[in-house]
C-alpha cells in the first residue's frame, strides 16, 4: 500500500470513529461536557471510562457518522474550547490518579474566525506543556487522521499507537502539494514524501506500536486494544511518577 492509500483509508466515511472504539473497548463510559470557560465542543469528547477494575479518563476527537452528526461535530475539527475541555478532564484525571487514553482522529484543529479569536494557538500550546508533566500515564491512539498540531494537542503521551491505516502528518498532503508545487493534484506524491504512515512513524520513533485492523474486522481490533490498554496501564502504574515523566520528556527530547 502506498502512503496515499493509507490516507484514503484513514479518511474513509465508513471507518469506525472514536465512539465505536470507546464502546468496543471499555466496560462503561460516562461523557462529561464543557470547558468551564466558553462552551462544549462536540468535536472533542471526554469522560470517565471503566476498563475491568480500573477507571481511566478518555479524550477523543469524534467525527460523527451520519451527515447531520458529522456537521454537528464539525467533522472532528475542534475549537479552542475542545482543547480546553480536554485539558480540564486531563487535570481531573491527574487529581484522581486515572490514566488518560486519547483517541486521535482529526484533519486538524479548526481554522476559523472564532477559533482564532478564542486562541487556538494558546489552547494547544497549553495542552502540550501540561500533558508533558501530567502525573498519570498517558496513551494516545491514532485511529484515523492525525492532522498536525490539532492531533498533537491531545497526543503528548508516554506512548503513541497507530492503527495500521492511520496517518500523522505535519500538514495535509493536499496542503503540502499546493504550497510546495502549487498543485494539489500532486497530493499522492506529497503523502509519500511526508513520511506519514504508521510504518514510517514507528521507524522515526514518533510512534511505538502499529495496531492491526484485521482487514476491516474492527471488533478484533477493539478486543486486542482492550487487552493492550490494560497491560499498558498495569505496566506504567508500576513506574514511579518522576521516572514516568522523565521517560515521557526524553521520548520527545531525543527527536532531532
Amino acid at each position, binding site marked *: 500500500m502506498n502512503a496515499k492509500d493509507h490516507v484514503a483509508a484513514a479518511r474513509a466515511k465508513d471507518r469506525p470513529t472514536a465512539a465505536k472504539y470507546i464502546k468496543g473497548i471499555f466496560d462503561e463510559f460516562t461523557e462529561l461536557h464543557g470547558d468551564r470557560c466558553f462552551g462544549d465542543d462536540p468535536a472533542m469528547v471526554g469522560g470517565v471510562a471503566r476498563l475491568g477494575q480500573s477507571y481511566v479518563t478518555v479524550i477523543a476527537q469524534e467525527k460523527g457518522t451520519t451527515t447531520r452528526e458529522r456537521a454537528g461535530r464539525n467533522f472532528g475539527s475542534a475549537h479552542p474550547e475542545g482543547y480546553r475541555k480536554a485539558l480540564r478532564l486531563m487535570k481531573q484525571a491527574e487529581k484522581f490518579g486515572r490514566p488518560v487514553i486519547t483517541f486521535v482522529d482529526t484533519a486538524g484543529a479548526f481554522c476559523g474566525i472564532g477559533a*482564532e479569536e478564542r486562541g*487556538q494557538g494558546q489552547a494547544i*500550546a*497549553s495542552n*502540550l506543556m501540561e500533558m508533558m*508533566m501530567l502525573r498519570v500515564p498517558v496513551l494516545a491512539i491514532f485511529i484515523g487522521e492525525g492532522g498536525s*498540531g490539532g492531533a*498533537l494537542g491531545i497526543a503528548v503521551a508516554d506512548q503513541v499507537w497507530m492503527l495500521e491505516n492511520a496517518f500523522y502528518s505535519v500538514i495535509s498532503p493536499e496542503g503540502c502539494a499546493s504550497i510546495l508545487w502549487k498543485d494539489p493534484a500532486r497530493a499522492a506524491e506529497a503523502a509519500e*514524501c*511526508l513520511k506519514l504512515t504508521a510504518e514510517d512513524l514507528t521507524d522515526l520513533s514518533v510512534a511505538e506500536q502499529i495496531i492491526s485492523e484485521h482487514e476491516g474486522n474492527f471488533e478484533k481490533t477493539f478486543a486486542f486494544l482492550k487487552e493492550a490498554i490494560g497491560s499498558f496501564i498495569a505496566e506504567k502504574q508500576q513506574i514511579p511518577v518522576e521516572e514516568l515523566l522523565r521517560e515521557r520528556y526524553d521520548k520527545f527530547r531525543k527527536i532531532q
Partner: protein
Amino acid sequence: MIKGLFKKPKNDLEPSVAGRIDKPAEVNIPHELCTVCPGCKKSVFSSDLQENDCVCPNCGKHLRLNTRQRIHMIADPDSFREFWADMSGSDPLGFPDYEEKLRAAELASREAESVVTGTVRIGKNPAALFVMEPAFMMGSMGTVTGEKITRLFEYATEKGLPVVGFTASGGARMQEGMLSLMQMAKTSGAVKRFSDAGGFYLAVLTDPTTGGVTASFAMEADVIAAEPDALICFAGPRVIEQTIRQKLPPGLGRAESLLKNGFIDKIVPRREQKKFIARMLRAHRKD
C-alpha cells in the same frame, strides 16, 4: 546526515563562530537608496529606515528586522555570546529540493538556521536569548530550530537565567515532516520544566508568528509582548478564508486584536523594547 555540509557563509563582521558578537550584520539592508514602505506606500530613505530599527518614519510600520539587527537593538554592547552557531539544518527525510532550499535560505539570511541562541545582558540584566530569523525559510521550525530552543531553555534552567525570546515563524517546517511537528512538544516540555523550576520567560512576538510556533513556545511565556500590527495566529488569514469561504473581519490575527481578546500582555514598539524587557527582567530577578 549531512549536518554542516553546507558551510555557513562567513559574515565578515564576525571574527569567529565561538566568540560571535552583537554587531549588526548589514545583510538585509536594501541596497537601493529608497524603500517603499508597505504600510503607507511612501518612499523612505533606506538609511533613515536603518537608523530607525526598520520602523517607517512616516507611519510607524514595523518592517521585518534580521536577527543581528535585533540583537544589536536590545543587547548591551558586546554582551551577546552565541551558542550552537554551527548547528545547521539537515534533510532527515530526503525531501525533494530541501537541501537546495536550505542552502538558499543560508545565503538569503546569512544564518545557519532559523533561530539564533545565546546569552546576553539587557540593561545590565543577564538573560538567555533566542531570536528567530524570518529570512530563513520564513522562520519555519525544523529539528535544529527546536533543538536549539530546547537546549537554551535547559541551559537557562540549569543556570537560573531568565529567557527572552523573539518569535517570527511560518510554523513547523513541512520538509522535515513529523520530526518538525515533534519539536512543538519538545520545546513545550523544556519550557514547562523551566517554568516549574521558577524560571521567568518573556516572549516578544513579531511579524509573522504563526502555526506550530504560536501553538507552542510563543504562547507559553510568563509575559507576552508583541510588535505593533504583527500577524500572530494559529491559521493564517488565507487558510481561514479558504476554509470558511467568507471575508475576515479587519484586524483578525493582528497584535491589537490579540491584546483586545486577552492573549498578549502588551504591544511594545521597537524603540521601547529594550527598556520594557530590562524592566521586566529586573522585576523577576532572584539575586
